[in-house]
């Protein structure tokens, strides 16, 4: 069996493992064991990938397998394979699932059901990243979306039904565009295949078809990547979602959007991207600045972070649309970086909320004195977000900026400078929050009795911080791994 299929098999086994569980302890045991196994597999995959790459330096996708056909009429295959980018995305997913498990240690009520849905979601995500067949990819994409509705609707807070419905409907709207786009690609590819590697190699989509398929697929994935003006599911969705779901959603699921955009929209329809890309480039440019300005005015911690995600994910799509190697490398790095630090943010916000029962920055103050561990972690997450060197955000953003600046024309230059200016705006809202909730005097005397992080929370946050700092200090191998995966640019 192909090693990649294990990434689907293990979560499925976990699902079975949850069934006999009687109490939260057993549920946790299964969840942690499963997540650890996945993380080990992801790390092993990285090393196997290097080994395999040394033997086979030319194939685009390694561990390639398309022997299983599951719908002959339309030539739909269970085609899998990975390149450096997917390996990194799988690694990111496994890190976030593990830390998310620790962050939802005391899930209440119905912990079993919660973890089952969460695991089903992870099946979808892993499946998406290993698939090469667009239909299979879409299939896994939908698997990842549906649990989201229940996870937010049942375990969420605030206006959860509304948010869950909104998120699902908007993303489904994106899916509708997407499936039309995918079918369009199938019939116009010239080789009647859903396999995007095959199409890129042997097929070709005529420009007339590209003109309508490109916007559809880009928009379809772009909704998930919080493309302005289709980002409004994100603030409400994140605000209502329980901690682990926010972490997974902002950390990984939003990355599906960017990943799909460059794998399918940009890769298969380069001519249309060249022709129409500027429209989306303007939209993403707006996302970057607009999200950042939007974050300044918010008062709910999760809303601040959701708008900040709009800004950061906007930068991912922005870089993808720059269509050059450096910018795209930066885009993938930004996906990783944003995934890690946003998961960290949501974990911390969940922990703060769990103690103080508020996320309103006006009701919080002086937490540094009360919970120094969590506060220092929050500061670090903030510094990563505003792009401090030594943490992950910096390397990703700089790669994007330098790459974008490779374009010599005024249009790209102006947009790039606009995007660069977000580093200041980000600093404003990050420091505003840090200064308000962590520093200063304690506002609410009840908060004085609160305690600092316990061991499982420390694992979750420290684990993510190590990753954020590790990526920020040793970015070379990640950058090279991504660069080597995009030889066609």
């Amino acid at each position, binding site marked *: 069996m192909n090693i990649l299929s294990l990434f689907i098999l293990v979560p499925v086994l976990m699902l079975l493992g949850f069934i006999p569980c009687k109490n939260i302890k057993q549920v946790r045991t299964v969840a942690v064991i499963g997540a650890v196994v996945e993380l080990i597999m992801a790390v092993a995959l990285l090393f196997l990938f290097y080994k395999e790459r040394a033997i086979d330096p030319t194939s685009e996708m390694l561990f390639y397998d398309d022997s299983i056909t599951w719908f002959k009429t339309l030539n739909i295959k269970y085609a899998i394979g990975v390149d450096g980018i997917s390996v990194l995305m799988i690694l990111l997913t496994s890190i976030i699932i593990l830390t998310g498990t620790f962050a939802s240690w005391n899930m209440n009520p119905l912990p079993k059901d919660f973890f089952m849905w969460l695991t089903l979601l992870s099946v979808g995500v892993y499946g998406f990243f290993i698939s090469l067949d667009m239909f299979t990819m879409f299939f896994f994409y939908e698997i990842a979306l549906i649990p989201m509705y229940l996870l937010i609707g049942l375990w969420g807070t605030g206006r959860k039904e509304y948010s869950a419905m*909104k998120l699902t409907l908007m993303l489904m709207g994106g899916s509708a565009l997407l499936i039309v786009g995918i079918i369009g690609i199938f019939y116009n590819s010239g080789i009647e295949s859903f396999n995007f590697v095959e199409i890129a190699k042997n097929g070709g989509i005529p420009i007339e078809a590209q003109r309508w398929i490109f916007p559809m697929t880009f928009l379809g994935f772009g909704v998930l990547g919080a493309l302005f003006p289709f980002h409004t599911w994100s603030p409400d969705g994140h605000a209502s979602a329980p901690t682990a779901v926010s972490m997974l959603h902002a950390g990984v699921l939003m990355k599906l959007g960017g990943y799909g955009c460059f794998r399918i929209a940009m890769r298969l329809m380069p001519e249309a991207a060249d022709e129409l890309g500027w429209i989306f480039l303007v939209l993403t440019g707006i996302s970057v600045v607009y999200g950042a300005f939007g974050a300044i*005015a918010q008062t709910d911690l999760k809303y601040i972070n959701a708008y900040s995600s709009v800004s950061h994910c906007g930068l991912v799509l922005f870089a993808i649309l720059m269509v050059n190697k450096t910018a795209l490398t930066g885009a993938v790095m930004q996906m990783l970086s944003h995934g890690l630090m946003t998961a960290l943010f949501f974990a911390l916000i969940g922990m703060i909320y769990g103690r103080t029962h508020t996320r309103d920055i006006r009701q919080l103050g002086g937490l540094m004195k009360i919970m120094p561990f969590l506060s220092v972690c929050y500061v670090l997450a903030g510094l990563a977000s505003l792009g401090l060197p030594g943490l992950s955000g910096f390397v990703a953003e700089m790669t994007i*900026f330098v790459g974008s600046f490779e374009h010599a024309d005024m249009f790209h230059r102006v947009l790039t400078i606009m995007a660069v200016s977000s*580093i200041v705006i980000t600093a404003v809202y990050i420091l505003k929050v840090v200064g308000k909730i962590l520093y*200063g005097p304690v506002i609410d005397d009840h908060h004085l009795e609160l305690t600092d992080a316990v061991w499982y929370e420390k694992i979750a946050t420290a684990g993510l911080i190590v990753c954020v700092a590790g990526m920020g200090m040793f970015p*070379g191998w990640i950058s090279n791994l991504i660069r080597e995966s995009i030889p066609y640019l």
Partner: protein
Amino acid sequence: MNDINMSYTLILLALPFLMFLVLGLLGNKMKPLVAGVLGTLSLGVMAAVAYYTAYQYFFVVGKVGEVYQSLPVFNYEWLQFYGELKINLGIMLDPISALMLVVITTVSLMVHIYSLGYMKGERGFQRYYALLSLFTFAMLGLVVATNIFQMYIFWELVGVSSFALISFYYTKPSAVAASKKAFIVTRFADLFFLIGILIISYFAGTFDFATLTDPDAPFIGSAVGATFLGGTALSWALAFIFIGGAGKSAMMPFHIWLPDAMEGPTPASALIHAATMVVAGVFLVARLFPIYVGTTVLEIIGWVGAITAAYAAIVACAQTDIKRVLAFSTISQIAFMITSLGVSGYGGHDGLGYMASMFHLFTHAFFKALLFMGAGAVIHAVHSNEMKDMGGLRKYLPITHITFAVAVLAIAGIFPFSGFWSKDEIMAAAFHHNKAIFALLFFAACLTAFYMSRLYYRIFWYDNNKDYHHKPHEAGPTMTIPLIILAILAAFSGFVPFSKYITSDGKAFEAHIDMLVAGLSTLAAVGGIVVATLMYAKKKDAPNKFTQTFPRLYKWASDRFYFDEIWLFVTRKIIFDRISKPIAWFDRHIVDGFMDGLAYVTQAASDKIKGLQSGHIQQYIFVYLIGALSLVFIFIFFIAFLLS
């Protein structure tokens, strides 16, 4: 040339970083004193390494023929972009980086020792030492950078350690506000720095200083060729990079963060906001000097410096918080260095301004650190920053008094103290370049002598019979020894023959004392001191009379000419109220409202249609018949249409 292995210089970066990690992660498990001593010892080692490195560089390996070379000691490829564009982390030794190594480690060591006493018993003592280590690491990384991107990286790290030290007393709202202001203002300036880097590296195809500082490099031609809004790409890039430097070095109009930064612990102010970090902008321009030379941008830099020098000197005269007086004096003195670069040429005696700037950076580091630490000792003794709570302290704090007096004489530029030598060279360079700039500097120099003497008298004389609740007393040896060492440096560091070692093109030249200029500036210094002595040596009514004669001027100066208010207006009223809030509203009500509206319309439509699924067979048949009939009619018309 480089047959001596100098990779031991890596210790200079590795040790402080290690110390930061150790103290940051394990600090809380240690006794405060252990953490402090550990930090101080490591700094001692680093200072020794830095001195040895500087010695090696200046006297053994640095010179090839008659010219000091830049030696890349170590280079590690950190992050690749495209082509030759990659970020390396490395160590480069050249005259100015070797100079900075000495300055930084010396002042940092003094601050480390001094803080053992000053910060004793403070909550977060270990954190303080961890941050000092982080700062030292970042600052050293900045000065030894081999390429401009490495410099930017450490530039940001310096900024964040400054932020963390300003907000050291994080429960105090004013400290938090000050730290935010410092970070955001400098970050705003850094934005331009980054854009400047992007532009210049695009043309040069590299970040490496070796290419960037080569005045004959081919990229300069192409960068000059491309124009934008009337300026060449090169001048835009250089101007933007200078804005970055102006942010860190608190040049107008970015100076507003520095006075507020005094909310941090005094020794940290001495290190960061007086001696080292704030001269990063000067260092940046000096580093890229060969491509700045002869451009209009350099001319502008000279003017920015001169105006800032005069402005800050005026404001310093009207401040009553002793640390703020020192902060404005720092702004003014750094502006001297910037101006000096602005009026300099390249090579030989033309590069006098360059040499003078570095010289002043060197001497200023010692006397300004001394002033801050002396002020710290005073604050430690009387528990206040305000002049009104001081007076007659010379009886209680004899060591502080004498060392402070040395520093005042040095900064005022009295022969033979160190400030005299370096400031005189700056004046000479300005005098021969542009008389108007010289006039501004001359004016600033007069005021410098005046406000520093005022400060000195207000602290140590003035109200000689002041009643103190607790009798002030001199601090312990951990605080007085650094004062004495720095006083010696402040007195004698002017005798270093700078023009032999640090020049714009690496070749030694003879710098002479220009008697005319020296006479003028001594006159200015003595004049300032005499006036201050008349006004402040004893408690008198003269100062009040003066302020009452010019109430408007005094008010404006003491309110710093309302620069803070302008910035506040722009950030609060325009960015927050006029941009950010409307965007948030627009997002909630228009963008999201549209989506919600879509959902509402769908739901309403389905509500309307759902009546059709009534389950009444008669109704279904009725609709069916109408539909069928319509189809038949359409069909008939269609046939008729085809046949006609």
